[in-house]
């Protein structure tokens, strides 16, 4: 079920009313309702994936208890290892087995063998990458003694399946969510209003910006061979905007829905395109995933080493794994490598850059800051070509053409007028986000405490524009990009 469909609106309206008017007597009832609603939401597209999800959750619930109960250090480690292998094994099997089979088959063929390997007919459980990471962090943290395991099975299952976050995160940590699930939620007007605003902003970013960018980007990437380099530059920039609007739009809606149910979900984006360096970008972008990789991959890899080259290597490995987590294909691995290399460069020049800024008094220089922002955005957008391309070959083809002599020729792709009109929405979106960059989301405090007519008119324009954009697809709502990961 997609947030932007009428099905979801009805589903959520029913859940909301039951949650606050019928099941509001105690925590257990509220959690039971959320669990039932989450399982319904999860299995809406395909009921077959639900048992896998429930069984996996129960296994991790049990592992959490046995790790905690076990007094023997070796046993604790073995249980933790079993959990990691089980979680990663399921992820590798469902998400990557066909990739490995086809890659191996191609390798054998290039070596001259006649490989006749068949791919498997597997239904990939929705959100598997997200819930696996949530479950892994749970048992690893219990093993590390960070917190006690959940005893309340309903609360635990609700945490894993919580419907606003199940499909594409944010990957909330157990210590952030489980205490909230253990407490009775009381309706908080301010939180609910903030949630509505956040949903509205997310809806606008997804339905208007991302969905309008999508056909233009598809057109450019599908026909890159016949387009000028200037068109390809526009394609890469539009894709960067589409990806951000789509994913941060989804996240804003998920967090907003959480607020309506009385939860505070972790912030996943902190205006990444206003980052002034690549390292800064990764502190602001997909925060819950980045911190997950840092906490459970990078820091354990670095351990107590004091060698800079080793730190750098670990960072590159971490980002390659992050690329592989994102998608099935070598282009994602290359995207991860690209991120790793640039973050290492960014971190290694940080000190000298700070000295340079101090020496030339650039810290508060707007021109310098904007140059840094645009440079970071350019590096990010270029890297996303690997992320968007269907294959490694396509990404190389796109990049090769990008550096051709036609860079100075006018763009020749279909939809130039649409792109110009799209700027009517893109530019204000970034202005709003810039103004609200110190807040949780773009419009959190915009026009708040000012003229109520102005504020409500603004909300109506956002909503109606989004509604119109959604209506143009005649009910065939476009999925969020991160659903496929």
């Amino acid at each position, binding site marked *: 079920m997609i947030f932007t469909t009428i099905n979801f609106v009805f589903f959520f309206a029913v859940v909301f009313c039951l949650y606050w008017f019928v099941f509001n007597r105690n925590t257990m009832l509220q959690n039971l309702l959320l669990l039932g609603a989450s399982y319904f939401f999860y299995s809406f597209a395909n009921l077959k994936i639900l048992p896998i999800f429930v069984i996996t959750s129960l296994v991790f619930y049990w592992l959490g208890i046995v790790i905690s109960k076990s007094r023997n250090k070796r046993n604790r480690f073995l249980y933790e290892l079993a959990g990691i292998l089980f979680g990663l094994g399921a992820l590798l099997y469902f998400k990557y087995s066909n990739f490995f089979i086809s890659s191996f088959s191609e390798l054998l063929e290039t070596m001259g063998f006649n490989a006749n390997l068949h791919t498997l007919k597997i239904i990939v459980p929705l959100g598997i990458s997200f819930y696996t990471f949530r479950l892994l962090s749970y048992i690893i943290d219990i093993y590390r003694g960070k917190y006690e395991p959940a005893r309340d099975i309903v609360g635990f299952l609700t945490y894993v399946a919580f419907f606003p976050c199940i499909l594409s995160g944010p990957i909330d940590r157990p210590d952030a969510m489980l205490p909230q699930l253990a407490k009775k939620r009381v*309706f908080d*007007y301010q939180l609910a209003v903030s949630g509505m605003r956040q949903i509205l902003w997310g809806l606008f970013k997804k339905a208007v910006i991302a969905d309008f960018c999508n056909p233009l980007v598809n057109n450019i990437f599908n026909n890159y061979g016949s387009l000028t380099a200037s068109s390809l530059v526009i394609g890469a920039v539009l894709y960067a905007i589409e990806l951000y609007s789509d994913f941060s739009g989804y996240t804003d809606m998920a967090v907003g829905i959480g607020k309506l149910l009385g939860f505070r979900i972790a912030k996943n984006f902190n205006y990444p395109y206003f980052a002034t360096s690549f390292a800064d970008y990764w502190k602001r972008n997909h925060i819950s995933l980045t911190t997950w990789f840092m906490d459970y991959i990078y820091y354990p890899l670095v351990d107590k080493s004091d060698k800079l080259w080793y730190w750098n290597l670990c960072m590159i490995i971490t980002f390659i794994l992050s690329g592989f987590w994102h998608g099935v294909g070598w282009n994602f691995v290359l995207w991860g490598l690209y991120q790793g290399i640039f973050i290492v460069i960014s971190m290694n020049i940080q000190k000298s850059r700070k000295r340079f800024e101090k020496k030339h008094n650039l810290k508060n220089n707007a021109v310098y800051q904007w140059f840094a922002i645009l440079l970071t955005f350019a590096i990010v957008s270029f890297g996303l070509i690997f992320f968007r391309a269907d294959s490694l070959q396509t990404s190389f083809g796109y990049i090769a053409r990008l550096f051709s002599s036609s860079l100075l020729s006018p763009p020749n792709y279909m939809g130039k*007028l649409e792109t110009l*009109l799209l700027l009517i929405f893109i530019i204000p979106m970034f202005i709003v986000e810039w103004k609200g960059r110190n807040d949780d989301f773009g419009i959190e405090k915009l026009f708040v405490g000012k003229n109520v007519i102005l504020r*409500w008119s603004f*909300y109506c324009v956002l909503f109606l524009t989004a*509604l*119109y954009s959604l*209506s*143009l697809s005649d009910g065939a709502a476009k999925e969020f990009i991160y659903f496929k990961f």
Partner: protein
Amino acid sequence: MKKFFTKIFIFSGIVVIVLIAGLLLPATPKVSHSILFASLHKDSLLLYEREPRLILVGGSNLSFGINSQMLKDSLQMNPINTSVIGTLGIEYMLKNTQQYIKKGDIIVFVPEYPYFFNQDNQGSVELLRTLFDVGMPKYKLISPIQYCRMLQYVPKLALSRFDLMEYIRVQEDEIYSVNSFNYYGDTYTHWGKERVKFDAWPHINLKDYNPAFIESIIDFCKTAEAKGATVFISFPAEQDLSYYASEDAAKMVAMAFYDSGLKVIGTPERYVFPDSMMFNTPYHLNKQGVDLRTERLIEDLRETLGKSN
């Protein structure tokens, strides 16, 4: 909580007001040349055309598939091709025609097969646009269930009135335009044009069969006959590949016509045409196909009318 719901209610109210305002605004320049506006001329023909009249009712299969001049010359009747687009739905087409029936009218109704296997008859965006773009007086012809189904298209239509592109990019389509019809109501601007590449239609799932529309056709026939008109049911012209992919569906529909005692002329197979006679969809004929289909319809009508005389 009360305050929260009050605000939600007020916000929803504002949205509804904007949508209603959008619906009431005139059609945008972009849609003012739409084929739906052809129904104005067709309705005036239904109202004023002299007897003896031959009224053709159906979807675009009929507007892209008939040469009315041939009908006029052969049958010595005044043809009125009322067809615009199939998604207006059986119920609307029949109810609209019903208003204008006169004694002695010969009506040929050509329902397209998919009508009986989907829900488009219950309200489409084209029907909503006919109401609000073309003109409001048709609102009585729409059933409550159609109104309910059309609700989903209200944002699209209402908010399109505020869409800048609807005013900037105004280009009249050569084939799908109010000006693509001749005096009788046939689409003719594609005659002599190159074939456009298209795919054959997939198999129609028999499980989706909805016989309810047969009842609507029977009711229409009874009303028309009470007014002194005669109604014949004919079959749509279809590309051979698409027809044979769903032959069972076509036969199922034909059987339902026969079983209901409707006056059926011809057979589904008579209106199956080779791919070379199609224009841009498996239901739209080119000029060669149009002429052949019209000849066959003339033969079927002559045979039936001859018998009844």
